């Protein structure tokens, strides 16, 4: 793409899996779906600390962060990521979540600032569409 071209640059999204639990199959499937929708997906992988996630988000200048979690530690990890983003003056980067999160917790996480939450039944189309609509828009 030549400089100054009117074509919009691709959305950059960080996909990471905080916490200590096992596999990242779901996160990989979502990463590929976002790629197929034309996004640049920075895949940070398993067992990421909130600090590492926020550092990656800043260095990679992403428009969106997607966190996948199964371990049940979401009520600790998500608020920590949001708090660190605020501390680093990066609260404008929206966060969405995927995983098994009880309704009551989901409500509280939304109130805390998580922009979207997908359960195991969510379709890839739905995830891609939502990701596109909540991604940060650049000046």
């Amino acid at each position, binding site marked *: *793409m*030549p*400089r*100054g*071209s009117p074509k919009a*640059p*691709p959305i*950059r999204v960080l996909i990471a899996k905080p916490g200590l639990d096992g596999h990242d199959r779901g996160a990989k499937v979502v*990463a*590929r779906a*976002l*790629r*197929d*929708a*034309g*996004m*640049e*997906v*920075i*895949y*940070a*992988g*398993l067992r990421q*600390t909130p*600090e*590492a996630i926020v*550092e*990656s988000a*800043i*260095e*990679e*200048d992403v428009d969106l962060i997607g966190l996948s979690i199964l371990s049940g530690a979401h009520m600790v990890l998500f608020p920590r990521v949001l708090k660190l983003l605020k501390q*680093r*003056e*990066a609260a404008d980067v929206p966060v969405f979540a995927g995983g098994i999160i009880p309704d009551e917790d989901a409500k509280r996480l939304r109130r805390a600032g998580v922009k979207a939450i997908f359960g195991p039944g969510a379709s890839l189309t739905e995830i891609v569409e939502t990701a596109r609509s909540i991604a940060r828009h*650049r000046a």
Partner: protein
Amino acid sequence: MSRAPSLPPAARAVLDHDRRSLARLISQVENRDRRVEPVLRALYPHTGHARVIGIAGPLGVGKSSLVNALLRHLRGMGQKVGVIAIDPSSPFSGGSVLGDRIRIDREAGDDGVFFRSMASRGYAGGIASATREVARLLDAYGMDLVLVETVGSGQVDVEIRRVASTSVVVLVPHLGDEVQSLKAGLFEIADVFCVNKSDLPGADGAARYLADMASLSPEEGGRWRPPVVTTSAIGPQGIPELWEAVLSHERFLDSDGRRADGERDRVRAEIGDLVRERFDRRLEATLAEDPKLRALVDEVLRRRIDPHAAADRVFTEIARRA
């Protein structure tokens, strides 16, 4: 270094180690956003310090793992290191999965490392322009070294050779497919060969094979003969030796004015890339807007003129406007 008061705020932010500003400028460079040009111009006098080292080779040979091991080694020596990890964009969707960060295991809060993933996209002037500019931003930020990891697609690797002063080509014990890659140009770009995964059987054989191949190149005229180093990125094993091989090539460049010659070549290539990019931009604009073009296409379709003649007219028009 004294700072002119007229420095654009974004440029000052980079010199003041603001990571978010640096990251945003890198995005603008990647997007070929022309608003970044005054910032690059202001920062240019603050660059020239960092050495750019390429790490090339086929997918899965352990390049990112080696970058991780090198980061540890280099940080231990107090060196500040920027990393640009390039992965291919999908030709279909334009999207990309950039997975090199998975291998990086860093000290939390270490300001002496900046890691950036970059998709190869479909850059008009090739990926070299963007990579050079990102490397320069990292240089202005204060990095001593910039490691550029590129994946196997011959074209991108060859382009990175025009950015890096030393290129390491990484291979694994069972050369198999890699022999094809060697034919496809990896052999020519290597200043250092690295046989990684030496914890697996066959590494010594592969290293001997490469050393034999390297010794086939004529030694005349003080030519560089690429050393072959074996490593295990996950051991880790052989990382100081790998870095020493890189430094020996850097020292070789410092003898007999070779570095200056190389830099001259790289600047010439860069100017060429940037002119091509400007030309492409102008061409795109002309093709998009010009109503005369429609008439020209009609003439070609009616076989009044041939496509070469049409191209001549468009070229003359663009040159006239430029």
